[in-house]
């Protein structure tokens, strides 16, 4: 039985870390050594350990970052953060500390464990992935949305379709703002027939696709639309397991990877949430094409804004921060001078944080 090494770097051990690790431990034929960074307080580590259902095959220990990364096959990055939605001013405000930490960790992984898979566990998935891509250019950065499947099921239910397993769908978009571009219930295509359901027709008439984002994200991107997404179907969380990377058993997963062409016309390196074929030490994105033009416009705006934020942080640039703020929807009613004033306040706060 082959033993694999998993490293957890950062400063927090959330329930998401537990879920991810549990999904790896679940596979019978794998044995894991889980190395947890010493930068995570030992007390937190001990509490976390108790929450894991880990049998005797596996081993967990705390070590320096360098030791954790030795022979690491997969590295989870877990940094404390609390943005209410992954886009907008709130996220930008918090991003300085978070992005800096992720980038430092990402660079460390790229240097000391260049073959390892990098999984940032963050609520700012698109922003963090963009930053990691910019800092490392690693094609092995993966992110999965824990609540994705339940949002897809919500649409299935809203369409009045009987729940089927497996539900087959293709989503596309930047993480936390992705859309269903194709879905079938057995031989029935969601978009193949005229939709009789009034609720769903309204969405399709407006957007020509169905969003798989949270209500908060939707309201941020479309503040004047007053449209309510269907309530997620509870307790059907996405299967996080990436064990296929190590067992070689092929699986299809909706996950976020840097764009290598799966999103036609979108910039390379942009984090893209879509279907990926997971095999032994390999994830191949499935070509997903394009989104409806209107959604593309919004996605591009979000992506460009994230690039500006990343540039602002990595380059300590007040100008890029100002430009990112100028793109923000919540600043649409402000003049450039007013936006400049707001961004200067934020930048000064960032710099104060940096100096401490």
């Amino acid at each position, binding site marked *: 039985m082959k033993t694999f090494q998993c490293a957890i770097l950062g400063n927090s051990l959330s329930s998401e870390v537990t879920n991810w690790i549990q999904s790896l431990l679940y596979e019978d034929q794998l044995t894991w050594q889980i190395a947890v960074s010493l930068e995570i307080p030992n007390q937190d580590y001990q509490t976390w350990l108790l929450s894991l259902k880990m049998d005797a095959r596996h081993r967990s220990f705390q070590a320096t970052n360098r030791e954790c990364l030795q022979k690491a096959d997969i590295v989870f990055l877990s940094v404390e953060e609390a943005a209410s939605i992954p886009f907008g001013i709130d996220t930008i405000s918090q991003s300085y500390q978070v992005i800096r930490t992720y980038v430092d960790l990402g660079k460390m992984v790229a240097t000391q464990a260049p073959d390892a898979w990098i999984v940032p566990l963050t609520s700012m998935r698109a922003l963090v992935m963009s930053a990691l891509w910019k800092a490392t250019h690693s094609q092995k950065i993966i992110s999965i949305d824990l609540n994705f499947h339940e949002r897809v099921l919500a649409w299935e239910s809203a369409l009045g379709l009987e729940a089927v397993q497996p539900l087959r769908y293709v989503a596309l978009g930047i993480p936390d703002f992705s859309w269903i571009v194709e879905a079938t219930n057995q031989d029935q295509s969601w978009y193949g027939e005229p939709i009789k359901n009034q609720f769903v027709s309204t969405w399709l008439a407006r957007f020509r696709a169905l969003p798989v984002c949270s209500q908060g994200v939707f309201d941020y991107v479309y503040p004047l639309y007053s449209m309510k997404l269907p309530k997620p179907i509870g307790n059907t969380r996405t299967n996080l397991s990436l064990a296929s990377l190590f067992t070689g058993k092929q699986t299809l997963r909706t996950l976020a990877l840097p764009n290598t062409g799966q999103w036609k016309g979108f910039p390379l390196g942009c984090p893209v949430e879509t279907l990926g074929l997971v095999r032994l030490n390999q994830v191949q994105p499935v070509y997903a094409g394009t989104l409806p033009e209107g959604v593309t416009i919004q996605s591009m705006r979000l992506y460009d*804004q994230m690039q500006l934020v990343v540039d602002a942080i990595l380059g300590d640039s007040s100008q890029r921060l100002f430009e990112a703020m100028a793109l923000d929807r919540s600043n649409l009613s402000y003049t450039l001078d007013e936006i400049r004033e707001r961004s200067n306040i934020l930048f000064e706060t960032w710099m104060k944080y940096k100096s401490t």
Partner: protein
Amino acid sequence: MKKIKIAYIGGGSRLWARNLMSDMALEKDLGGEVALYDIVAEAAKNNAIIGNNMMAKHEALGDWRFTCASSLEEALTFADFVLISILPGTFEEMRHYVHDTEKWGLYQTVGDTVGPAGIFRGLIMMPMYEVIAKAIQSYAPKAWVLNFTNPMTLCVQTLYNVFPEIKAFGNCHEVFFVQRILSRVLKEKTGLDIPYHDIRINPLGINHFTWINHATYDEYDIMPMYQEFVEQYHDIGLLPKEDDWKHVGPFGSAEKVKLDLFHHFQVIAAAGDRHLVEFLPHAWYLNGQDQIDQNKFHLTKVQTRIDIMNRGNESAIRIRDGLEEVSIHPSGEDGIEQIKALLGLTELITNVNMPNLGQISNLPLGHVVETNALFRKDSVRPIMSGEMEPFPATITKQHILTHQLLWKAYVEKDLSFAREALGYDQVTMHLSPDQIDAMFDEIIGHIQPYLTHYERGIVR
């Protein structure tokens, strides 16, 4: 003297046609036939008379014969060059798509490129340009096509979308005005008095939203000089006195917007202020008359354009009847120089609008962009101009994607895509979907006779 045939589509134009005829008259190396075609045949006839009168003047150096063509086929057959300058629809439709938006607090300064006006004008234009592109494909597939019509980007894009092998580019003089400002900067900072066209620039963007990130004259780097210049004039603008902007006419401004944009983004905005503001969020420069006055530019009323047209028509009739003398003067446009270069008589580097082959590395390939290009015999090669600065690139991409949505409306014959595009425009983004729908429905109602191409989406 090189003899050629030029087909002029929109040959009844009051402004562009006369400018061109003037330039032709002053060009000694070229001659031949200019076939004027216009759906208003009378206007083309009048221009033919005006053109031939110009050639009869003693100062005319060219040898041109101006004729009227009764069809596109007649105009285009054997044409070496095709010039297009039309008004999509009439000023009556324009009055609606420019001014009806004021009910929702949206003031439009020019009303022919982006924003609601650009969208509605684009909808009217695309079917017309499909006809033109197909006619060029049939009757003059090897001709070079010079477009002067707005919305420039969408016009040139339509030509390429319909006839991908077309040899077309779009011409715009806005950048030249900014070169003039740069020439002034050089003069103020160094004392050198240089013609504007000797200022070397690297323009990047889409038409009327073009940016300059490199400006030099010989060994002088003008960019840092411009920085100082902006600091000096940012608050007052470029006119000598506080109120001068009020007297510069409906197309003028004190250039305060482009100074402010440099102040904020450190790149030179290379178009007139009235154009620039239409590309940007409403709150920045167009949020009511006070803000507009503060920034010292004018809203060009469509009635002003109608008055100018009427005066042009009256003048044409007087010239035709021998009651008015025709005058010849250089227009400052590049069209004739471009034609000479394409004939191999000269070599030219100037800004044009063509599909992106990589000349702007961070904008989508295939979409029409504006950069410098090298003109030589039968070739126009875009100059690889690098990346646009991040912020202008971001806004530019938003407009490019909106254009793609508009093109989809055309291809699918479905106006619901145009309705969607209206909601994504930078100046309308702050409006609710209900407001967008109301605006769309109202304006569509007024321009419907020009929308027969569209089969769906007229009613929501």
